[in-house]
């Protein structure tokens, strides 16, 4: 992994005598490579490496017997700092029902995650109501209804002829009259650059002021992650992220890029296709996964 590469590079450089600043800069290229291979955004990597460099060109590293270990320690500290220390929780509204809106690019895992969240909330003693806000994708409503059936939880739908603002309004009213305290709104996948579709989300936000607007992001997303997150966060009030498909071998550098650029926390991770595959986000685990 990265620790060995750093250690080897620095040992090789140290082999010719005492380490100097340029040697450390040379070794840090390994950090740059590791982060780029992990899909961390190019500009984020540049800033990160220069921050590490500032700390690494000090006597503690250059005169250390194990400079590689010193650098790795700095990298890990800086990375964990960036990923955030707090274990992030869901916010609930003082006045029920709490509305949780899921949004994101096409295919990122929103509908499945809606089911997972409903399962978790029910297990936590809540009364969730799933709301079918995707009126475009073929059989999207069927998909959510099947998940609701599997969980024995209600799904609110108005079919695909009503607009999502009316649907979420209807869902809230249904929740109030049927004792459901949380509405989980599934929305259609959309491009951050699709003006009309982003307006639809804005309209929903204006209408119901969700306690949580969660951006659902695929862990294998590459450099484009910052563009997507920045646009969603600028147009909406994103309160957090859910990173999906972490059961694969994607390093998930998108998480670091998005956190750095938006400051918004990852609240959950999707760890599989089943409805139980939702876990809290552990920043230190993510940091070491990204470093490889």
């Amino acid at each position, binding site marked *: 992994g990265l620790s060995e590469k750093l250690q080897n590079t620095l040992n090789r450089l140290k082999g010719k005598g005492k380490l100097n600043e340029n040697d450390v800069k040379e070794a840090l290229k390994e950090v740059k*490579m590791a982060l780029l*291979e992990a899909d961390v955004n190019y500009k984020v990597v540049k800033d990160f490496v220069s921050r590490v460099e500032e700390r690494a060109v000090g006597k503690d590293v250059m005169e250390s017997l194990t400079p590689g270990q010193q650098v790795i320690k700095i990298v890990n500290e800086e990375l964990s700092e960036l990923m955030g220390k707090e274990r992030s929780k869901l916010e609930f509204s003082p006045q029920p029902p709490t509305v949780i809106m899921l949004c994101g690019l096409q295919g990122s895992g929103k509908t499945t995650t809606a089911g997972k969240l409903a399962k978790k909330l029910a297990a936590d003693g809540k009364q969730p109501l799933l709301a079918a806000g995707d009126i475009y994708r073929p059989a999207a409503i069927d998909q959510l209804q099947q998940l609701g059936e599997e969980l024995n939880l209600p799904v609110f739908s108005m079919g695909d002829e009503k607009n999502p603002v009316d649907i979420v309004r209807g869902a809230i009213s249904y929740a109030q009259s049927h004792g459901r305290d949380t509405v989980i709104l599934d929305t259609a996948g959309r491009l951050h650059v699709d003006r009309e579709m982003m307006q639809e989300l804005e309209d929903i936000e204006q209408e119901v002021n969700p306690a949580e607007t969660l951006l659902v992001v*695929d862990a294998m997303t*590459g*450099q*484009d992650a910052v563009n997507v997150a920045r646009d969603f966060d600028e147009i909406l009030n994103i309160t957090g992220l859910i990173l999906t498909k972490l059961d*694969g071998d994607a390093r998930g550098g998108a998480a670091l890029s998005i956190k750095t650029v938006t400051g918004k926390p990852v609240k959950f991770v999707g760890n599989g296709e089943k409805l139980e595959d939702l876990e809290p986000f552990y920043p230190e685990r993510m940091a070491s996964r990204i470093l490889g």
Partner: protein
Amino acid sequence: FRGYSKIDDELFTELEELMVQADVGIKTTMDMVEELRTRAREEEIEDPEELFTEFQEKLVQILKSDFEPLELSADLNIIIMVGVNGVGKTTTMAKIAERYRAQDKKVMFAAGDTFRAGAIEQIEVWGQRLGVEVISQQAGSDAAAVAYDAVQAAKARNADLLIVDTAGRLHTQKNLMKELQKVKRVIAQEAPTAHKEVLLVLDATTGQNAISQAELFDEAVDVDGIALTKLDGTAKGGIVVAIKNELGLPIKLIGVGEEAEDLQDFDPDQFVEALFS
């Protein structure tokens, strides 16, 4: 290029940044930039424009070499859609069907995703919209059994093209990759003379993981071509350069939207131009 008056380190750094941000990948990028530096020195190139043009041509060459577009043979054609979760397999299948239906070909669908909620219904909606017959079984049934039924039906109805949808699966899930091999085997056994094509669907927003996906799917079921989806977003899909360069897998189709018409043949020149726009 880009307002540079001379070839220097700054230019190569800018090139590196451009390529990495297009998801070409750091290893491929560094190899290519290194090669470009050498060429600039050896051929004594002074003009950045000239260097940049050479560079683009090199990229086009990588993507163009042994390029074969998607083509139907005169016999039964069978396309198997494979790929990880959510990349656009089912939607791409619909787009391919639309293209050939418009050419008056008889197309059929096999609802091979028997696992995911709403998967069979999703194909049925497309089948209805496009006038394509869907062969399916109950949810939870064996995907290979659906494939078997579909091949028999395609032969009986004298179909020109059978497209087999499969469930999304991570390339790292060994048992699911085995299941995919079984689907391919059943199809090969039941339609030995058919022209068969395994189409790997990749999402243009995917980063370096696409290489791992391509490697493992190719290893498991011998991929014939790639369909790169969601190029209507801001992601460049540069990872296909590394995939073509290292694995030799050709990109045949691109997806540029969510409707049935949003399918285009892969055009290396346009693609490379877009990488740097």
